[in-house]
């Protein structure tokens, strides 16, 4: 996932070398994840601030055709850089996101996945996911992906209500969703569906229709995100000019609660603020890695990476534009734009802010004295689960999930 605005940071050496101390900063959770960003879409959605381009916007070495090779060259660079600090265990999860990864032919996705495998090998039972648009797959393409080693597909359904999809600039036919879910299952892929709530003009009933439709498909995993109107997007401009209403947090709260009710009734349980799964085994292990603090390497323009743990960690991010990205790699240079080194306080802050989003929660012992004392107050306010707190874990209640920022602030004072 690559939001469009990159943070400020310090420069990265041309060869992409990590600070030497990384060798002594083991990650706090087991596993090594690879994210592959595919920066192409057929159309650019008005709400989307991700780093993505339509093919008409690109050419040369940045084109879709050459992308698999370009990405493979970053993976080779990644192998060297990690090996220099004693990293590079077999990969436990791979996630292809975008953009629309399935705009690339399955063979290209297979090429990139093979490059990952060549570099580090895949751990036994590795999870390999790709995002897909319902209108960018066929039974054959899904079968080809499965054959190439993909285990899971996440469809961007967003809504089943035509006027909501239109506001989001989504072009797919919602009636096609049951078909593509069936094809994916037939290919042996685990299926997840993504939904968006809070689109301008979406009523609570519209949202219920989308939830019911998804629940009716008996999938094992659902993600539901509140629409974020980002600066610099077409929708952002429309909201600023008053052409579209700004999202209302109260409306979002009501829709979140409805989602939790409908999905729970359909046998799905929340395991992260915005994610529900049928069983623990159905949870997205790749995303769990982000929240638990594993090492991960993000491949592709604008992709973020993270290595380290304990007292120190480093995050970096690649240059945003596919052209600049391709040029850097062609010149044998690291595509990293900048990085930030996190000290102990920052690492701990991130640990709290990420771990508290999970149903497994946060070990209260990891908190300082004052925040630990705040736990009782948060339980009293109905933001943290009392039983879990007694067992030494900070776990959000449903109300707490909606007010997770308030909880994180209280737990990091």
């Amino acid at each position, binding site marked *: *996932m*690559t*939001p469009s*605005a*990159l*943070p400020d940071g310090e420069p990265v050496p041309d060869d992409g070398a990590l600070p030497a101390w990384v060798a002594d900063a083991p990650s706090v959770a087991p596993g090594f994840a690879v*994210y592959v960003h595919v920066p192409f879409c057929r159309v650019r959605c008005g709400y989307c601030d991700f780093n993505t381009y339509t093919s008409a916007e690109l050419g040369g070495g940045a084109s879709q055709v050459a992308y698999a090779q370009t990405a493979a060259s970053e993976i080779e660079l990644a192998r060297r850089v990690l090996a220099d600090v004693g990293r590079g265990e077999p990969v436990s999860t791979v996630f292809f996101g975008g953009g629309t990864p399935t705009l690339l032919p399955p063979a290209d996705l297979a090429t990139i996945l093979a490059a990952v495998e060549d570099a580090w090998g895949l751990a036994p039972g590795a999870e390999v996911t790709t995002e897909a648009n319902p209108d960018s797959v066929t039974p054959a393409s899904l079968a080809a992906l499965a054959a190439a080693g993909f285990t899971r597909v996440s469809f961007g359904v967003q809504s089943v209500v035509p006027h909501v999809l239109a506001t989001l600039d989504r072009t797919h036919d919602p009636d096609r969703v049951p078909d593509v879910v069936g094809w994916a299952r037939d290919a042996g892929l685990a299926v997840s569906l993504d939904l968006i709530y809070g689109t301008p003009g979406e009523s609570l009933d519209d949202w219920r229709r989308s939830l019911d439709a998804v629940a009716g498909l008996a999938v094992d995993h659902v993600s*539901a*995100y*509140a629409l*974020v109107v980002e600066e610099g997007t077409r929708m952002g401009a429309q909201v600023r000019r008053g052409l579209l209403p700004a999202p209302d*947090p*109260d409306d*979002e*709260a*009501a829709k*979140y609660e409805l989602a939790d009710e409908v999905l729970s009734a359909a046998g799905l349980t929340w395991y992260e*603020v*915005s994610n529900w799964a049928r069983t623990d085994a159905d949870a997205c292990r790749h*995303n769990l890695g*982000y*929240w638990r603090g594993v090492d*991960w390497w*993000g491949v592709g323009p*604008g*992709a*973020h990476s*993270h290595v380290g743990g304990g007292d120190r960690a480093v*995050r970096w*991010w690649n240059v945003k534009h596919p052209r600049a990205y391709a040029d850097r790699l062609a010149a044998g240079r690291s595509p990293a734009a900048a990085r*930030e080194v996190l000290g102990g306080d*920052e690492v701990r*802050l*991130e640990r709290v*802010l*990420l771990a508290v*989003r999970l149903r497994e929660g946060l070990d209260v012992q990891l908190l300082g004295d004052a925040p630990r004392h705040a736990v009782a107050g948060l339980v009293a*306010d109905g*933001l943290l689960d009392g039983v879990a707190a007694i067992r030494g874990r900070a776990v959000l209640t449903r109300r707490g*999930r*909606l*007010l*997770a*920022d*308030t909880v*994180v*602030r209280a737990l*990091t*004072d």
Partner: protein
Amino acid sequence: MTPIPDAALSAQVQPAATPPHLLRNFCIIAHIDHGKSTLADRMLQLTGVVDARAMREQYLDRMDIERERGITIKSQAVRMTWAVAGEAGGPLVPYALNMIDTPGHVDFTYEVSRSLAACEGAVLLVDAAQGIEAQTLANLYLAMENDLAIIPVLNKIDLPAAQPERYAEEIAGLVGGDPSDVLRVSGKTGEGVSALLDRIVHEVPAPQGDPDAAARAMIFDSVYDTYRGVVTYVRVVDGRLTHRERIAMMSTKATHELLEIGVISPEPVPTKGLGVGEVGYLITGVKDVRQSKVGDTVTDAVRPAEHSLSGYADPKPMVYSGLYPIDGSDYPVLRDALDKLKLNDAALVYEPETSVALGFGFRVGFLGLLHLEIVRERLEREFDLDLISTAPNVVYEVTLEDRSVLTVTNPSEFPGGRIAQVREPIVRATILAPSEFIGAIMELCQARRGELLGMDYLSPERVEMRYTLPLAEIVFDFFDALKSRTRGYASLDYEAAGEQPGDLVKVDILLQGEQVDAFSAIVHKDKAYAYGVAMAGKLKELIPRQQFEVPIQAAVGARVIARENVRALRKDVLAKCYGGDITRKRKLLEKQKEGKKRMKTIGRVEVPQEAFIAALSSEASPDKEKSKK
């Protein structure tokens, strides 16, 4: 023949050696932007005191704030020489003219009165395009009561909008005499200024005083200078003062050595002394203007005068406000800054106070709103402080049922019950306005609990209305309201007129049941509801939603008179938190935590400092006072 005296003539009017019959002491009475400073500048140039090159605009206004706002805060005195032909075309006779600059704002009436007492004549300066204003009228009455010779002058006759005939008639009606006696000048072009200097020589009486009596000099200004300590401006009434002699302050009996004595022309020039009738400065090495107070009488310590000159009064604060540093760690800076300003401002009083909402600060007493604003601005500008000031309030005298009496300068100290009587300060206000606005003004004054004392027509078009009004009704936004109802044409002056009982109550503001001291206000019973509704409504907009509902209540005692609710926040979580979102999220959180340091917690409610500033600043509008015309 030049009116600037040559060396031989100048020798006759040397400081400490000028016979009283060659002295003329005068001041200029004018409204703020009627051009007093420009006229004074022109006089300095014409008399050769300042050459054109050294001239800078408003030479006499020393403080930056004065120059920027075009108003005079501290008065000064400049000695100029001017020669006029003797009787029947005789030889030129030299004169020493002392121009005493007076502050022009209602907050500084006492300083004005001391300046007037140092003069024998006053130039009444009126803008030929605007006519006389209430403030000028008040000072004119003061000058006439002091038996000063009045020289009426219309200024800005170069303006296209000038109506000299019309306003000459108005002025003649006020001071007596014929409209043709009203001089017409332009400070800007210099036209008529020379004739004005001649008129001053001819019409302002020479000072009368006993040169052989024990020395008595009246202090009409006192200024702190970083390098020289306090510089005191005096008018010698009887006897003389000499360099190095010991002097005594008659109010305190404190004695000092005269380290330096001299005249201003236009920079300080040390002299051997000051003779009877002369005006100048003295330096004794004291560091605090409170040791050299305006209105006090200076005498010879060895041969002291028996009686002090009349008219001395300690300045009395009329308006109080809490001043708090926005950054709590600036408290010591604020304390030091006030200590420094105090050296130069005998009217400034303050004591430390603590507010639950605002932390550590000071309760500061001021002469009025302009004084408040000037002090605040100097603190921010000269000491680099960011301040919150609470809504200004007047001083209340509360008699409890047990007959004990409390003086309340802070609404949060207002007792909750057992009150027998509350007395509040009142003022006598004079409003000048075109007569078409009489109805609008009466309506406004009635709404502000005013009582009409009388009304006079200055001319068929202009009316003078006199009211008694509670000071509290004036210190907030009265002047703005008056201006807006009279399309800017009305002018206002007021003077303290004692106290009267009032039906006053304290309105408290509560957040989640906790009182917020900074928002308490003492208001008339009939206005409590409006205040409560307005404040609760404003806070509802300013207080961010919290994870619980925040009731905002306005209450008089235990009775809730207004209520608003800040609804509970239901969602603040960021839905997506992957890869690059994590850095964004962490930075946002770090920023929020930084922002939290600027939050004040009332009970459990977190209130951003900006909310306090916004709620307090829009309540009172002292800023508008400077636009006074």
